[in-house]
């Protein structure tokens, strides 16, 4: 696991194949967030701050337990609290740990114009390398989950790294380590899917018939997954996308159209060159000058033939 997390499977703005002889035969990693076990203590937020040396500004109370109210460049994970009244009239407190989903098909990486500013490791983690970030914000445009944030200080993009530095040396992410209820679990994606299946079965046996795993296929699956009591309605959980996918606009903007456009631009320039070679320049010859002189003379019949000096005429 350690070495594979240093292997780069995909790199932003790179058109040649990445080194791929070494493969992740032991599987990729995943974080499983079990919303049914979360008590909203925010230990994960604190652990994230501590491990990553992040201290966000002290904010103000916005009338909910969400604190800070949104992800920021210095808050890479945020608990989102939703008070949901179910059809039976009971209150359900739905708490979702928000942050980067580490998509298998990352919209941020697809949109990024700077080589190597966004990478996807062989273990599935999507990481921003801020030293290569140019601050254009295209990752924000590409992300289906509204996760990356541009820092006001340095204009670089930041988000959850899934503690790629910890995972690289065989540790679990800081948030996992801090979770007191086991709502956060980390391991191979396969193991997490199996664990989730057990959790879903348990939830179903206790009346949550629509319980399920959130591992959206629209982005190729994610390396951060949720167990939801209401998997049929992910939007209940502070607007979690029901069917996330990279926007059609982003696909058109960043897909095959761009290399095609480059080729057309090149061909346009080439067409000019070969037109010159085949047809040649469009030149004025003596007959044109003579015809012009004649036209001038007939317009000014009493003056001597023009040509004595460069008579400038302003239009």
């Amino acid at each position, binding site marked *: 696991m350690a070495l594979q997390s240093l292997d780069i499977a995909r790199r932003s*703005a790179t*058109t040649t194949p990445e080194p791929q002889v070494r493969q992740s035969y032991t599987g990729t990693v995943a974080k499983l967030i079990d919303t049914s076990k979360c008590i909203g203590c925010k230990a994960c937020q604190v652990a994230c701050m501590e491990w990553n040396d992040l201290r966000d500004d002290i904010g103000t109370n916005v009338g909910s337990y969400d604190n800070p109210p949104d992800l920021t460049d210095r808050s890479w994970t945020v608990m989102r609290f939703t008070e949901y009244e179910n059809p039976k009239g009971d209150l359900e407190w739905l708490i979702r740990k928000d942050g980067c989903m580490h998509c298998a098909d990352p919209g941020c990486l697809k949109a990024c*114009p*700077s*080589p190597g500013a966004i990478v996807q490791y062989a273990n599935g983690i999507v990481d921003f390398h801020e030293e*290569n970030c*140019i*601050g*254009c*914000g*295209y990752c*924000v*445009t590409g992300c289906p989950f509204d996760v990356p944030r541009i820092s006001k200080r340095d*204009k670089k993009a930041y988000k959850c790294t899934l503690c790629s530095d910890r995972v690289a040396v065989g540790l679990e992410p800081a948030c996992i380590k801090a979770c007191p209820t086991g709502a956060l679990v980390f391991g191979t994606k396969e193991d997490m899917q199996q664990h989730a299946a057990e959790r879903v079965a348990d939830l179903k046996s206790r009346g949550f018939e629509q319980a399920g795993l959130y591992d959206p296929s629209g982005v190729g699956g994610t390396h951060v997954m949720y167990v939801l009591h209401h998997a049929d309605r992910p939007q209940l959980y502070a607007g979690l996308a029901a069917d996330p996918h990279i*926007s059609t*606009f*982003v696909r*058109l*903007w960043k897909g095959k159209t*761009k*290399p095609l*456009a*480059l080729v*057309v*631009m090149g061909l*346009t*320039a080439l*067409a*000019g*060159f070969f*037109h*010159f070679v085949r*047809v*040649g*320049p*469009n*030149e*004025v*010859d003596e007959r*044109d*000058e*003579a*015809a*012009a*002189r004649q*036209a*001038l003379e007939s*317009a*000014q*019949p*009493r003056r001597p033939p*023009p*040509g004595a*000096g*460069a*008579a*400038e*005429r*302003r*239009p």
Partner: protein
Amino acid sequence: MSDTEHRDTIVRYTPRVRTNHWLLALAFVLAALSGLALFHPALFWLSGLFGGGPWTRILHPFIGVVMALVFVFLAATVWDDNRLQAADWQWLRQWRDVVNNREERLPEVGRYNAGQKLLFFVIVLCLTGLVLSGIVIWRAYFSLYFSIGVIRLAALVHAVCAFVLVCSILVHIYAAIWVKGSVHAMVRGTVTSGWAWKHHRAWFRQIIHAAHPRTGPD
């Protein structure tokens, strides 16, 4: 051109228009190079010309704003001469004669030919699209005022307009190389009477009329 001094020259572009044009050209080249750096990874090396990726990102929108402002002045000057007329459609229909240097078969052309007029309006459309979409995707100052859907659309519109504009300007640059005397006109301001006669005969007639109104040629 040993007999240049014996030829009549006509002012085609005043110093103000020339300055305006070349400021626009300079801004376009800088905007295009910095924009292409972000357009496709194959051209990211162009960002080196601007001091690296972050500087390219910082400078590109300001260059774009300068280009748009400079164009507004140029457009105001040449707008009237670029109105498309019936003869222009005939000119365009005979594009084969145009590209094969058979100019004598074409209808007489005024100050600008139909191709130039078309380019003018393509620039108007593309620059409008680039400015509007560019504001939306200008992350440092304006993106926060727009929804993500609008930003995504703007990113696409920006790339499409830039592509059309770059292709059009490539044609424009080639046309200036192809039609001899054009570069001289835009650099020095003047053309020979023969040039005006050959390429813009209606304009040429207009000028000699204006210079010598029919005051009874007895």
